[in-house]
């Protein structure tokens, strides 16, 4: 398998800030790769390193086997969908989409035909004559996508492209992007801080924290088998038990995680001796279930109570329980 993008010990420091610190990634050709992390974790800087807007302070980045060292953005076969879309306000939609082809020297009629086709691909046929200012957020996002795709890039970079859309539109675009990626077979590198988005769309996810990658893997691995407490916590707010507590309960000294949906909650006395005493702090209705925040031995935990089950009141003493299988143990050192 050819690697589309490879980071070898790549770092990008801004003064004393290590935005990207000794990162190694191998993104395969045709892969839908997500970079997930909180803001300031270095994921966007990684994307900008691939695009060429930033140069690595040390280490190397290669694109399809060729070192990108000293290659300016305009000579990389990589296109970006920007977070703010960055559509040219003085050009109409068709000329925006055809911009890359115009720069490449394609004759007007030909590039307008290609741009029209790209607009059809993103379900915006016939919008060419409009100005970007006349489009809705979702439509601009599609134009930005068409403008990048029309150049047939080898790698498409997407910088939080769905961040500005409302929930319904975002879910729709997530599906469309996935379908589009399968259809075109282009390598997608997708930056997001939304774990649901990363897990639902990507083939593989890299979780970033403080400039480093803390875990790379398939969405199921990231979700069910977090290697470090940060991943367990950031991806779906798992309940992380500190090593001392785990040792107390199962005799092994390492951090452990349970998904909120694996934690069962019962009134005092209803569960057997393995139940753990806890106090309910807050409850919030989230649709199919209710989120219950509790404190157990001073550790904050979250349990999901499915619809139909009895809800504890705030301040209630409850017992928590979980299956041993649902307790995921992490590396002691992590």
């Amino acid at each position: 398998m050819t690697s589309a993008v490879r980071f070898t010990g790549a770092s990008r420091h801004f003064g004393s800030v290590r935005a990207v610190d000794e990162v190694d990634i191998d993104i395969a050709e045709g892969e839908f790769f997500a970079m997930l992390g909180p803001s300031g974790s270095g994921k966007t800087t990684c994307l900008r390193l691939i695009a060429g807007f930033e140069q690595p302070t040390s280490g190397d980045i290669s694109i399809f086997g060729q070192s990108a060292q000293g290659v300016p953005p305009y000579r990389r076969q990589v296109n970006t969908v920007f977070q703010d879309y960055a559509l040219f306000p003085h050009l109409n939609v068709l000329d925006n989409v055809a911009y890359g082809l115009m720069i490449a020297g394609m004759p007007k009629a030909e590039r307008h035909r290609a741009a029209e086709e790209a607009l059809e691909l993103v379900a915006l046929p016939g919008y060419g004559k409009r100005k970007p200012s006349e489009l809705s957020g979702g439509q601009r996002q599609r134009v930005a996508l068409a403008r990048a795709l029309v150049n047939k890039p080898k790698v498409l970079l997407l910088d939080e492209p769905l961040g500005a859309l409302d929930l319904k539109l975002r879910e729709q675009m997530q599906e469309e992007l996935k379908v589009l990626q399968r259809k075109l077979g282009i390598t997608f590198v997708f930056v997001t801080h939304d774990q649901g988005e990363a897990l639902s769309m990507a083939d593989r996810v890299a979780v970033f924290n403080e400039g480093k990658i803390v875990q790379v893997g398939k969405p199921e691995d990231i979700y069910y088998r977090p290697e470090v407490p940060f991943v367990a916590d950031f991806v779906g707010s798992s309940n992380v038990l500190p090593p001392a507590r785990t040792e107390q309960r199962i005799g092994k000294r390492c951090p452990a995680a349970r998904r909120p949906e694996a934690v069962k909650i019962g009134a005092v006395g209803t569960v057997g001796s393995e139940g753990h005493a806890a106090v309910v702090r807050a409850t919030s209705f989230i649709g199919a279930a209710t989120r219950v925040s509790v404190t157990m031995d001073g550790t904050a935990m979250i349990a999901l109570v499915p619809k139909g089950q009895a809800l504890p009141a705030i301040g209630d003493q409850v017992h928590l329980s979980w299956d041993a299988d649902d307790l995921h143990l992490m590396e002691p050192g992590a």
Partner: protein
Amino acid sequence: MSDAIADRPQNGVLTRVSDTLWRKPRLTILLLLAPPALWLGIIYLGSLFALLAQSFFAIDEFSGMIVYEFTLKTYGELFTPANFDIIIRTVVMAAAVTVAAAIISFPIAYYAARYAKGKWKAIFYLGVMLPLWSSYLVKVYSWKLILAKEGILNWLFETLHLSWLLEAYLSIPVIGGNSLSVSWTGTFLVFLYVWLPFMVLPIQASLERVPTSMLEASGDLGAQPSQSFRYVLLPLALPGVIAGSIFTFSLTLGDYIIPQIVGSSRRFIGQAVYAYQGTAGNIPLAAAFAVVPILIMGLYLWVAKRKGAFDAL
């Protein structure tokens, strides 16, 4: 009880006036607009139209008195070779000053908009605005000293053993002369210096509104920096360049002091207006001359609009 808040006693005239204005937004707008509208309508435009009306009269050649009858004879006089030369000379000078100002301003404005932060931005504004704080006449006379034969510029050329270069330049007809201070090159330099802030600031304002991602997107799509400049940066900054050029162009078209102090004896429109209005008493011809810059600016803006210069607004 429910309207206890609304029942709070309204004491004081000011409170009552604010309440009335708040309830009647139309009245507020009317009160706000009336004084400037009166100023603009009567004093500003009124005097302008009074001047324009003068241009449709003519002067009686024997008595020197103004004949208050509608005629286009005065406008015809603009096209006599001597007067037409003045118009062409002024327009060419204004265009040259504008183009040079735009070329010099763009990099300065770009730096200020893109890179200057905090202290450096303050220094930039100071540097650009400082010349505007001192008297215009003082600046023009200082330039006369700088450009004079005994001036610092000549001294510099001599020190560098480059006097021959200056001599060669000054021997070029039209733009040269006895010294820089009596040549059109001198006039050009002083115009350029005096009007430069009026070009830098609008360009800087327009560049400030171009997000960095716009240029990155252009580069990302394969455009080299020169192409990004031509297809993205310049079109987006054009409203600022046009705004600046309106200042530099119209200010140069109308000025009569700079060419009088620094330059050759051949006149510009402003000097012609000054001479006809004051010493010659030919107010109709002065008015007709004054109409020329207005027409040129109107034409310039119309062409700019047609060419899409304001599309990015």
